[in-house]
């Protein structure tokens, strides 16, 4: 996350649907609302979005259906050509790429997982997973071996000769994940990968996904309409509405200080103590002397609840991962969050 050059960087990206959209876009001023654009006969799927995604970061794009999140991710992978702005991947403007270069980029750097899996129905699990390798012309033996590796990784060993229709939803999505990982991509796009699954399976797949991410450390753009899922997985969350990003921040900040009313509405029903970490509430000590044992900055308020109630100190010392003291947390403030009256 410390990389200065972002892996993906988009500047003022627009995507309008409608005839002659580029010409129209050039004619309008900034700040046109979704409604105004619609009255002109265009649908603004993505509206002036600027985002930077750092190496190894997991950015979750959150929004209700029709908010433009799926379109945005397709702009980042150029499955859709954008109407205005710029999308840079590793410093290269992807709108400048020729068809051949684009294919090359996808063959080497990008993987994508789809909501309804997007599996090829006439191919076995193994052939589906090996598909991207086959497309780039890897020889049969090599791609088989690599495909088996990823199939093992997602826990589908023994099912490699099955056809997609013979698998459950969760298993099918494991195939989708395996396929997107086969070429060892740097950038991993996941378009509502777990939305089509049952709640229990969804939870299991999220755990699985976190395990994979810990192991592989990819740069991830993850789309979801489920706020809980976003909070659970994200380094940063971008909340979209009517094609524009309302707020893009860490889960703690979004919960603690929502930027707009729309974002606030989302956070209303969220158990804040489960999201907010001690580190976020920590303030510099400024010479004030702290006593006793310290708490870990990456534990949530909920995890600390017992201690918050029983501890009698006004300010609790907070230490980071390496055990170094970074500041103090006001116990009353934390208690307010825990009790929901902040």
């Amino acid at each position, binding site marked *: 996350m410390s990389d200065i050059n972002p892996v993906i960087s988009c500047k003022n990206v627009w995507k309008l649907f409608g005839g002659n959209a580029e010409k129209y876009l050039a004619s309008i001023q900034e700040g046109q609302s979704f409604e105004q654009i619609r009255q002109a006969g265009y649908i603004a799927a993505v509206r002036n979005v600027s985002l930077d995604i750092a190496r190894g970061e997991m950015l979750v794009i959150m929004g209700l259906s029709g908010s433009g999140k799926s379109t945005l991710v*397709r702009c980042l*992978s150029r*499955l859709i050509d954008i109407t205005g702005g710029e999308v840079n991947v590793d410093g290269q403007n992807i709108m400048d790429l020729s068809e051949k270069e684009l*294919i*090359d980029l*996808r*063959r*080497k750097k*990008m*993987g*994508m997982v*789809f*909501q*309804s*899996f*997007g*599996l*090829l*129905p*006439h*191919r*076995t699990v193994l052939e589906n997973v090996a*598909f*991207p390798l*086959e*497309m*780039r012309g890897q020889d049969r033996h090599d791609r088989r071996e690599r495909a088996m590796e990823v199939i093992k990784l997602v826990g589908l060993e023994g099912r*490699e*000769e*099955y*056809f997609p*229709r*013979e698998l459950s939803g969760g298993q099918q999505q494991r195939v*989708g994940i395996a*396929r*997107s990982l086969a*070429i060892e991509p740097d950038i991993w*796009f996941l378009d509502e990968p777990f939305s089509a699954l049952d709640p229990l399976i969804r939870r299991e797949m999220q755990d699985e996904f976190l395990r994979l991410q810990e192991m592989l450390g990819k740069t991830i753009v993850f789309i979801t309409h489920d706020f809980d899922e976003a909070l659970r997985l994200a380094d940063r969350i971008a909340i979209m509405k009517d094609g524009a990003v309302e707020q893009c921040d860490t889960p703690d900040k979004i919960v603690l200080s929502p930027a707009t009313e729309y974002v606030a509405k989302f956070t209303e029903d969220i158990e804040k103590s489960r999201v907010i970490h001690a580190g976020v509430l920590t303030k510099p000590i400024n010479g004030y002397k702290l006593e006793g044992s310290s708490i870990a900055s990456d534990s949530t308020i909920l995890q600390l609840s017992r201690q918050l109630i029983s501890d009698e100190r006004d300010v609790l010392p907070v230490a980071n991962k390496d055990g170094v003291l970074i500041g103090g947390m006001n116990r009353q403030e934390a208690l307010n969050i825990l009790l929901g009256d902040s």
Partner: protein
Amino acid sequence: MAIAESQLAGKAGPLTRTQIAQILFILAVFTAIIKPMLPNIFVRIPVDLILPYDIWLQTVFDFIKDDLGLLTLTRGISSVLEWLLDITANLLYGKRRWPNIGPVPWIAVAAVAAVIGYWLKGWKMALLAGGTFVWVALIGQWKLAMQTMSVIAVAAPMAFFIGLLLGICAWKYKRFERIIMPVLSILQTLPFFTYLLPAVIFFKVGPTAGCIATIVYAIPPMVLMTSLGLKKVSAEVIEAGHMSGSTRWQMLRYVYLPAARTEILVGVNQVIMLCLAMVVLTAFIGMPGLGAKLLSLMNSLKLGRSFEIGITIVLIAVMLDRLSKAWVVKQPEHFERGTSWFARHKILILGIIVFVASIILAQFVQVADHITRKQDLSMGKDIDNVIRTVLANDIVTGVTDWLRWFLITWILIPFRDALLWLPTGSVILGIAAFGYFVGGRKSAFIVVLFFGAIAMTGWWDRSMITLYAVISSVILATLIGIPLGIAAARNPKWSEPILLICDTAQTFPSFIYLIPAIMLFSVNDVAVVFAILIFATVPLMRYTIEGIRAVPSELLEAADMAGATRNQKLINVQLPLALPTMAVGFNQAIMFAFFMVIIAAFIGTQDLGQELQKTLAGNNLGKNFVLGMCVALMALTFDHIIMRWSNERRKALGVG
């Protein structure tokens, strides 16, 4: 939706769509009443105003044929086709041509067919496939059937590839699609005689011309199904293909075509069935085979043997249909890792073994190789006698004679005379009223254009006779088919088997339907109407059942809870919702009727079909084409009006 549109129309002018339609209709009736006072030009287009389309077209054809050298090209194509046809002919029935290794013994063909049937759908299919060939051989029609099959074996793959290519182009290039779609709908409504004559002129008489006509006839559904299937590939599968870094060719080869497999195979099924239907009809241009034999037997009223050939054709049709449909639904099976090559390909190996075994058997046992005339089990004469005694029975003759008398004197002749009496202008006004009512100005314009064109050809009276046969038989078919369909749909125990029967009956080549008609009513107008009637009842029944069964069950439950009786439910819920689907069946019935009425020409009708059949004797391509277009334009008019209505109704109901 319909209301909203008529209101829109109402805003545009002082009158609503319905009102304009009513005025047009009243005008039509009024002009008909005052016929004696009308100017001649309104009653019939005078001879000197008729445009000589046929001569113009003939000039164009001659120019293309001789001056542009198309004939050289087509003769070139036909020599390639002839070469292919000779190969299949040699293999299947031992025509003395290269590679000179045939004929394959019948028992080997039957055995391989059984293995294919088993592979596709288990024992029952094996029995059907093998059994059909055993029947064909035992009844002594092997050579005839193989003559027919040898043409299908060439025509079906050709139609498949050409249709697939055109389908891909239509899907890829919007402009090409816009050009080819109207051409396809004309091709689908052109009477088959119009396929035959150009084929004869450009591609010689006999199997080659028959094959070409068959290919052209079978292409349209393949094009439609291919482009439909490609359009239906899910967006995510396409995106997955792109994200895997596929090039355009890889997308088509590995993503689009395999994902459209089902639709493409449905297209294959239709190609095969249309090939069979057409190849039987190529008897009219002297193609030897089952069709030719059936034609000559029916001409000489040998009913017993006609009946046997009919069964053969029906069996072949059912077998080809079931096999290709089984292929549509057959999904690949997976084998566990490490399964040996032999285990994976056991059916293939079985097929090779039975093939070789039967060939060896045929070397030693003559009956297994071919069945001679004396050995066959044909009972043509006996069946002939049975049919004749049954038909000579007083009750049967009483009923058929009465029916014939009643239909001819009270329905057919008056109706035909009325249509012929009506002024051309009134008919066109009446049609325009329908068009306006259903689709507004644009539809009215289209139908007036179509019927106007027919009037200008000078074949108006013949066209009206064709129209009379079509309308009267479709009305009769509606009176029979729809009540039967409703009755069947209300009883789930009946609807399944009846749907199955309808499905099967629809696979029969149309020629078959003439056999019972001629048996019962001998050769006259009633036989024609009866043949069309049974042919057209099938789609009517089928779509009625399907339409009623497709009504969502919540709606029926809601009606039940509202305390509706069975009849109230039928009239207020099921029928209104089923009507758009039933209209599709009605449309298909009319299309079938137009097809059948032309075939019936050979039993002596006086309509366009008769004229068309006459053109086959000469090489008057212009006239042939003009007559064909008259039929196609009438059919397209009905097609346009009915489908337009059905689609609007569907939209209004918010279904499909």
